């Protein structure tokens, strides 16, 4: 077990309304978790608590297997909030440089991986919102933190960008948590889905199971993934991705 959250409570103002109302959660080593929920459900707050950017009012976050707190990288929902460097290259090099890693080498690899080589010498502030998103993701990846946390990593990205980010994140051999509005993205690219509603955890489980539960999705204000709707309309079992769906059509025809 990488991390355990025990009865976490948090409010932004003293004695104010709680944004997080008693969250218990176990995070396993090397798994990829998606956090889904409506606007204002507490996704960002919970990710900030996990990252150590906010301190819980009560409850505990423990790391059972580590002697000291592991390194956690955080990519904010608004990428500009994390920027400060003159160029994309400097921005991506900053985190590994700070950690005493071989920054030039690592940054180069990461920049290639998220396909932003053509933006290397540009100012991160002058990019489109989708390009800024990729730079923000690269700036966390390059630091090689043990736990990686991404707040809305696919916000402002088109389908191709979303798939690329999904493949990069799900291919990491590190513990990863990300929040998303896109149930399609959570369905395809996470091992476990955490559904949050009104500061509490409603459900945790495998994507196919959690994201096909009508009641849970309706309550949390989440759209049913397109692939689930499609399978239901065609009375087929729910495939885990597009390739499996194509196979199902073939079988159905045979």
């Amino acid at each position: 077990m990488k991390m355990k959250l025990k009865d976490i409570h948090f409010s932004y103002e003293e004695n104010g309304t709680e944004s997080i109302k008693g969250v218990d959660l176990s995070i396993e080593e090397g798994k990829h978790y998606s956090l889904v929920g409506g606007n204002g459900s507490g996704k960002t707050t919970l990710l900030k608590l996990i990252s150590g950017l906010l301190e819980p009012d009560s409850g505990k976050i423990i790391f059972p297997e580590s002697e000291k707190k592991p390194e956690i990288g955080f990519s904010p929902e608004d990428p500009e909030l994390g920027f400060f460097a003159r160029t994309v290259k400097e921005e991506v090099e900053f985190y590994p440089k700070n950690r005493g890693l071989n920054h030039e080498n690592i940054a180069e690899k990461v920049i290639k991986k998220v396909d932003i080589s053509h933006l290397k010498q540009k100012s991160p502030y002058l990019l489109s919102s989708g390009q800024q998103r990729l730079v923000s993701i690269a700036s966390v990846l390059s630091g090689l933190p043990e736990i990686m946390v991404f707040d809305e990593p696919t916000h402002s990205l088109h389908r191709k960008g979303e798939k690329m980010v999904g493949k990069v994140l799900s291919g990491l051999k590190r513990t990863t948590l990300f929040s998303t509005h896109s149930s399609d993205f959570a369905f395809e690219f996470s091992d476990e889905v955490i559904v949050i509603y009104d500061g509490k955890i409603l459900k945790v489980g495998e994507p196919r199971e959690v994201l096909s539960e009508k009641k849970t999705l309706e309550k949390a204000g989440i759209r049913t993934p397109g692939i689930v709707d499609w399978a239901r309309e065609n009375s087929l079992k729910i495939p885990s991705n597009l390739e499996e769906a194509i196979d199902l059509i073939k079988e159905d025809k045979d």
Partner: protein
Amino acid sequence: MIKISSFSIMNIEGDRLLDDIDLKIKEGKTTLICGEPGSGKTLLLKSMKGLISEGLRKKGNIKREGRTGIIFQEPRKQLVRSNVKMEAAFDLENLCYPPEKIEKKIEEYSKFLDAEHLLNRDIDEISHGELTKTAILSVLVTEPDIVLFDEPLSSLDYPNREMLLEIIKRLKQKETTIVIAEHDIRDLIDICDRIILLKEGSVLEDGDPIELKNALYREGIKIPFPWELDIEARRDRS
């Protein structure tokens, strides 16, 4: 109506961010501008309102007939006052409307948007979806002939998306000219009359959503899952 003629935008380094665009946006129609990140969709939309950032140079011209309003991707960034009703009054005060008329317009459009309950709330205490509604309210009170939306859906959850789509449908019924920049067209196909697909600052395709299905997919636009499956299954067979 918006008429864009030989319109280009260049940055300091001389890159053409928009390259020789010629377009006519017809009255009363809903037009979608699509394209991958950096293709120029937000830039084109902002240019339609006359908003061009510092450091960018333009060439060619854009002619607008009628008043234009814009709703930004992050609605919080366009709100300047602390209370919803005061915010809604801001533009009208600047246009020197008399107080009774301001009151009437706010009443009319908060009803149109089902936003009456928000009027006395503070901007800092309302939800993300309510901020979007407030931004739309403060634009609609000025009764624009053209309403521009910059990626309106991307930060909204499902219930708020439904809310926004309902507002767009109501505006369409009133024959307002609507232009939306988006890379996710799944919920907009039934609403829009035309799609303009941009690539590297130029118009790649211009037409009916269903006709452009394959081109949209190629450019990485989010399309409905059955469309995506259909295209991939065909590719698999051939």
